[in-house]
Structures are given as C-alpha cells and as structure tokens.
C-alpha cells in the first residue's frame, strides 16, 4: 500500500483542540468535522486539502496530543489527507488513527526535512518515505502485519468483522 501527495507542513505539539476545536464536537459527522479541521492554526486547511486531492500532512513531535477525541483523525481523514508523517505521535492519536484506518508514519528525519508543497510518497509495506521533489529517501518504521491489516480493513471494526467472518 502506498500514499502520495503534496506536503502540508506543521510544527511540534499539534494538539487535538486545534485539529478539531471542541466547539464543533456536538456532531460526529465526518464531512461536518472536516470543514473545521485545523482552522484555528491554518484557516485554509480545508481548501488546501480539497484542492490537492491527495495531501500528506508533515509535522514535528507529539502530533495529536491532548484529548482522546476520535473526531480529530476522523476530521483529517474526511479532509482527504492520505497520510500523516510526524517525528512522533501522541499515543491516543496513534491508536485512534490506526483504529479508523488513517495511515500514519513516524520518521523524525523525514518530518524535519520535508518542506511545504514537496511531493511525497510513502510505502507502508517497506516504511520508505520518498521526497519526489528533492529525491531524498527516508526509512520509517513499517507497521507490523496486524496493524497494516487493520488499516487495510478501514479500521479496527472492519478488521474485527473480517476476523469474525473468517471463523464462521
């Protein structure tokens, strides 16, 4: 499985309150949430993500810190983001992203070097991140098999259902 897209670059400690502010959490409708994704630090996020169809978010350390709201990865996924590359992820966000089938990759070097608007390709089987603009390649850590299967099943629930149907 691969993801490609233009990079949108952010800093350290992007928290779930800026990914999707609590004032919009009276709904869990993905397309409604996507309209307000990242708006407190990047007003144009929704239009940039929509314009480029495939967009990769690149950020520093501790991405997704704060609240456990699954609305945060849901909003990002519904915005059309194909992958998030960060130096590190906060742990609840990490779980939530995998559980809803949003691909993410930890790679401090790539997170540091990739610049806004660079074309990026991520290969989830090998963990290799390629910056197509500069030609640089980085080794991220690929997911273990069962996590790749969860993402390929569009999340944990799809995975559980698939496992259950195999047993029948």
């Amino acid at each position: 499985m691969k993801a490609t897209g233009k990079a949108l670059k952010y800093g350290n400690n992007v928290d779930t309150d800026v990914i999707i502010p609590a004032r919009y959490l009276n709904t869990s409708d993905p397309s409604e949430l996507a309209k307000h994704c990242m708006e407190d630090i990047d007003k144009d996020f929704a239009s940039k993500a929509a314009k480029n169809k495939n967009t990769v978010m690149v950020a520093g350390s501790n991405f997704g810190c704060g609240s456990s709201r699954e609305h945060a990865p849901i909003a990002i996924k519904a915005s059309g983001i194909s992958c998030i590359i960060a130096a590190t992820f906060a742990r609840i966000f990490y779980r939530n992203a995998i559980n809803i089938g949003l691909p993410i990759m930890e790679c401090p070097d790539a997170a540091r070097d990739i610049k806004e608007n660079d074309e990026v390709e991520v290969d989830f089987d090998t963990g290799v991140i390629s910056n197509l603009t500069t030609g640089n390649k980085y080794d991220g850590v690929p997911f273990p098999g069962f996590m790749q299967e969860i993402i390929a099943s569009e999340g944990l629930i799809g995975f559980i259902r698939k496992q259950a149907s195999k047993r029948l």
Partner: protein
Amino acid sequence: MGMTMTQKILAGHAGKKEVKAGELIMSSLDMVLGNDITAPVAIREFARIGMDEVFDKAKIALVPDHFTPNKDIKSAEQVKILREFAREKGIINYFEVGQMGIEHALLPEKGLVVPGDAVIGADSHTCTYGALGAFSTGVGSTDMAAGMATGKAWFKVPEAIKFVLKGKPGKWIGGKDIILHIIGMIGVDGALYKSMEFVGEGVHALSMDDRFCMANMAIEAGAKNGIFIVDEKTEQYVHEHSDRDYVVYEADSDAVYSEEHVIDISKIEPTVAFPHLPENTRTVGEAGEVKIDQVVIGSCTNGRIEDLRIAAEVLKGRKVYTDVRCIIIPATQKIWKQAMNEGLFDIFIDAGAAVSTPTCGPCLGGHMGILAKGERAVATTNRNFVGRMGHPESEVYLTGPAVAAASAVAGRITTPDDLD
C-alpha cells in the same frame, strides 16, 4: 527481570506471569467509560460490529458531562444516543443530569474503580484513577466500542519513569503545583508512551484529591498512565466508597525504569502554566503582571471538595475583582451538596462568584464560561492549548485553586500570601 507496578497489573489482566516493556498483550478490562462526546461515535461503531449485547452491563459507565446540561440541540441529540443505548443494553452505570458529575471525579466517588483494576475510557483524562493504584488509560471511541463488545483491549506494555516524592508540601501547595512542576521539568512529551509511577514517603503527605489531580495530568506529559503506590489513605478511601474486592500491586524491587527523578515537594512553589502548553511553567513569583478577565475553579483536575475548601479559605471575606468573572464548578452532586452544607457557597456568592451545576463546560470551550478574543483566564483545568476555552486568540493560565482564587480577588495572577 522485575516488573513495574503498571506492568504487574497488565500481566495480571493478560493472564501472564510476566510481561516486558514493548510486548503487545490482550488485557481484560474492569471498566469501560465514555462521555457525551466520545460515546456516540463508540455506539455507532459498536453497532457495526454486529453484537447484540455488551460484554458486562455493570462494567460500562456512560457519563454525559461535557456539554451538559445540554447546551444546544445537537448536544441534546448526542446525549439522547447515550441514554437510549444505556436503556436498550441495560447498562447500569448511566448517570443522568441530576446524578451526573464530571466522569473522573464521579467514578472513584461511586466506587466503580478500585486498586488493581484495568480501565479504559474514551476520554484522555481516564488516567486519573491511577491515584487509586489502578491501571487506567484514555483511548478513542473505536477502542471503547471494541471494549464494550469484548471486555478486552490490546496494549503495548509501557516502560515507566519513577518519581520519588519526598518531604511535605507547603501551605497553599497542592497536587496541581507538583504535577505542573513535573510537566515543566520533563515536557509535554516527556513521558510519551510511558507510565509515570509516583512513589516515596512524600506520597503519604498528599491527600487523595492531590493524587487524583496529579494522575489526571499524566496525559499532559504524554504518558500512557500515571499511578500511585497504595497506602493507608488509598485503602481508607476505597473502604469509604466501594464494596468491591481489590488487589494491591507493588513494583518489584528490581523493576527497571527508563528514568528516575527525586522530587522534594517541600521546595515546590505556587506554579502556573502559561499559554499555550502545560509545560510552559513558571512559579507565580516569576509570572510578572498578568491581568485576567476570568477565573474557573473546577474540572476533573481540581473540582473536588478540598479544592473548593481552599478556594473558600482564600475568598472568605474578600471580593472578586470588579473586572473578573469567577466561575466555580463542583465536580459532582455529592461534592456540590457537601460544599453547600459546609457553607462554602455563602462564601463564594458573597465574594461575587458564580456557582454552577457539575459540567466539564468551560474547560474545553464547550459552554458556561467561554472567552472572547483577547481575553485571559486563570483556570484550575488541565489544558491551555490555542482556543481551548474559547476564541483562538484567548489565553488560559493553569494553576491550582489557591492561586486561582487569589487571582480572582486581585484581577491578576497572584498567590494568597500576596493579597492584603
């Protein structure tokens, strides 16, 4: 190789004699929690799994506490999803407005978590129950759905950082000052993926309310969980609140820790976290002249009876500064009644403060005290991210209740000792 306290609890719940840091395990769960923001998504995902019943009607708690009493039509619809699911599945621990309190103050008070438990909650501050010597951690809605269906969750066994506390806290110093000091020291990702284990004779000098406050903010250092040793105070609390049997786990003497910090809590001064991260800490003495518009005393961090008593001690016979709104929110109905019976509300109201029914409300910018552009609040809550309490250009300064109450009187950040 020895195990940490957290590792021992996880081994016990995975049916294993031993677990090692980094190992993936499947753990049984003693409690699965959700609120009015996270549970509707979990209930939708639960339906997709296709199971008719939850794994245990007594081991699920649904607490509508964030946007309640319902702040608007959409919020009312969300809570309705919880209420109907609870009725349909026969979930015992659903708490309607009137019995409801802020979840992480409510569950220990109702005796629903005891030492040695393994708990997940679709709320990041689920780590609060570590104060009781339980393993508890925040997860998302999908994990909550899987937990409601199977009674299990997968975990990567965490490493731990050991915090050895010594000494006794000074006057006006509480759990909040200590945990802010620690987060300032290690940073908002200083304990990422790890446990924070609090040990040492200094723990005995801390009340249960201090410990709940500290475990609550373990997530603000990125930790998977925060956990305290179990002592006489813990056991007394558990006996007063629960009939359940419990297991006291202790770390092995040869347990391996990734870091160890010795903290003399007698030296900690009143502490404040500046915007927009909980790690931006300074002592109040170093804060300078910070004028404020609002004070919030409440939340799952500092809305307990001791917090209200401290606020009352400071506000007694004084007035809230003219240009400040002071909002006080007891965390549960029991705390509310206790505060009322102790006469604390007379003090608050005479001082010109507003007292609210339990709600998470302003902490996450939901309702009951939202900030306008450019406004500043001192809050006993747990996060001061951009836009957390309202407008993206507003600011939140995190403190304990003593500094918050003193700041309400002075109209700027200060300590009780600096009031006339």
